[in-house]
């Protein structure tokens, strides 16, 4: 019977693989293992100290028994393990669940890991045999690009938002990526005009408004073990609040944009942390598409619904700006390693709160808002991370 350990659960380890356009000769399991190894090194722990494991679904390699397969591969014997299946919100959802499992006495030290290969020319088609497959796909509406284009069009029509306003989000992502040598778009900035000149993939979405799929992986270790926290070479980072909401799967069944599930999740996370969104020193907002950042700024209450474009005109979003936003470049600048892409927002937030975001460090970074978004504004998780317990 595990007794609850004394310390408040803290994030003590980060592992991140540099995103690559295409992987070669790699397996997802191998990349998971490498991400976990890096996180354990960062945390200063041995593998035997890990007693909790959270993994994501894997469409291709391991559709079932994922925790057992990963445990076997790594030689782990967790006393708590599970799959978290929240699309782009999986990483954030894992962190909250890791903390809850620790607080419930299920385990003490949890590794949360997501990774995937991305091989050239290999397209894995969804094995869905469910309503979205039956009632959306046969009309020519396959894939996330089309779904998010529908949501962006709705925003533009309902609120009068403009292509330039959305393009500015992609511009900032690329600009911030210039300070992150691992980013896929490092040394590839893009102006607003460049974004608007990129091809329309699914109108109204331009190519540069859409994340680039890459291969990569990320792992985060959370522990309540005081010895591990005390011996850690990095200052601990805590999850001060969290919130989550799931509403629908298919975009045709989505609620109104201003009632998107992130509006609930963000408010809940800030409420738990007893902080206001204006007190956040970093906005680490999930950005599979420009339009998601726009609606997230609105869902977070930084501006009224429909007004993100006007609001952004008056602020600056670099690490030295008044509202640092996705200082790692976001996924639009860093690349999206499938589900691990969502984890990049957590990793950057922890680096900033540790004071280790070299070359792009936010001054006096105390609090960060992290969001995760899965399916089409369907699965939403928000975290407030802080460097002070």
């Amino acid at each position, binding site marked *: 019977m595990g007794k609850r350990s004394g310390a408040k659960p803290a994030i003590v380890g980060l592992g991140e693989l540099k995103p690559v356009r295409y992987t070669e000769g790699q397996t997802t399991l191998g990349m998971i293992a490498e991400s976990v190894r890096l996180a354990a090194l960062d945390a200063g722990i041995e593998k035997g100290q890990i007693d909790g494991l959270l993994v994501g679904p894997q469409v291709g390699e391991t559709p079932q028994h994922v925790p057992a397969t990963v445990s076997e591969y790594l030689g782990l014997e967790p006393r708590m393990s599970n799959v978290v299946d929240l699309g782009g919100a999986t990483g954030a959802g894992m962190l909250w669940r890791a903390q809850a499992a620790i607080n419930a006495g299920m385990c003490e030290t949890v590794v949360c890991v997501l990774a995937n290969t991305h091989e050239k020319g290999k397209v894995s088609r969804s094995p869905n045999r469910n309503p979205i497959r039956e009632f959306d796909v*046969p009309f020519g509406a396959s894939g996330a690009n089309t779904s998010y284009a529908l949501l962006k069009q709705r925003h533009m029509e309902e609120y009068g938002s403009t292509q330039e306003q959305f393009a500015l989000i992609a511009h900032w992502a690329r600009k911030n990526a210039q300070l992150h040598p691992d980013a896929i778009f490092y040394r590839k900035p893009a102006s607003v005009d460049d974004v608007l000149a990129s091809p329309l*993939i699914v109108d109204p979405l331009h190519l540069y408004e859409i994340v680039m799929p890459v291969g990569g992986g990320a792992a985060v270790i959370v522990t309540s073990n005081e010895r591990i926290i005390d011996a850690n070479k990095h200052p601990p980072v805590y999850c001060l609040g969290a919130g989550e909401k799931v509403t629908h799967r298919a975009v*045709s069944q989505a609620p109104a944009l201003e009632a998107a599930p992130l509006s609930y999740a963000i408010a809940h996370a800030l409420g738990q942390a007893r902080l206001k969104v204006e007190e956040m020193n970093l906005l680490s907002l999930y950005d599979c598409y420009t339009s998601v950042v726009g609606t997230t700024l609105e869902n977070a209450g930084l501006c009224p619904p429909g007004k993100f474009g006007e609001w952004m005109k008056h602020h600056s979003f670099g690490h030295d700006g008044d509202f640092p936003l996705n200082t790692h470049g976001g996924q639009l600048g860093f690349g999206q390693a499938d589900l691990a892409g969502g984890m990049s927002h957590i990793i950057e937030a922890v680096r900033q709160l540790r004071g280790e975001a070299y070359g792009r460090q936010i001054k006096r970074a105390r609090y960060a808002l992290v969001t995760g978004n899965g399916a089409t504004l369907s699965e939403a998780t928000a975290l407030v991370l802080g460097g002070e317990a």
Partner: protein
Amino acid sequence: MEDKFIDLTVPGPTITPVSKPFWDALSQDEFVVQRCLDCTRWVFYPRNLCPHCWSNQLEWQQASGKARLKTWSIVHRPGHPAWQAVAPYVVAIVELEEGPSMMTHLLVDVKQKLDIGTPLELCLTKVNDRNMPFFRVVD
């Protein structure tokens, strides 16, 4: 205009025992939607319980085929390669007169001016030998 879909070999619906009456009716040129006998609300897509009140008393009823446009997009690069043959094309989310929303394919020119609320009507269209519930703009 609708002929271009006849030989299009795109993924068709993955019909289930619950949804079969919907597709069977379409093949008879009828558009039926489930309605809850308890709360009277209409339900789409087909289910075996009402998502509003959890009643399992659902009945197939004739729907009007009238709808309004909620949002749309012009697909230049389809998510499934088989659709490329008819790209660019317009997909849309429509709100049926009866209440529920559904995804559909709009039979309009990509240059046509559209607005939220544009009135639409059902236009059954043969795709790969199956009647699909596409919509067009009301003249």
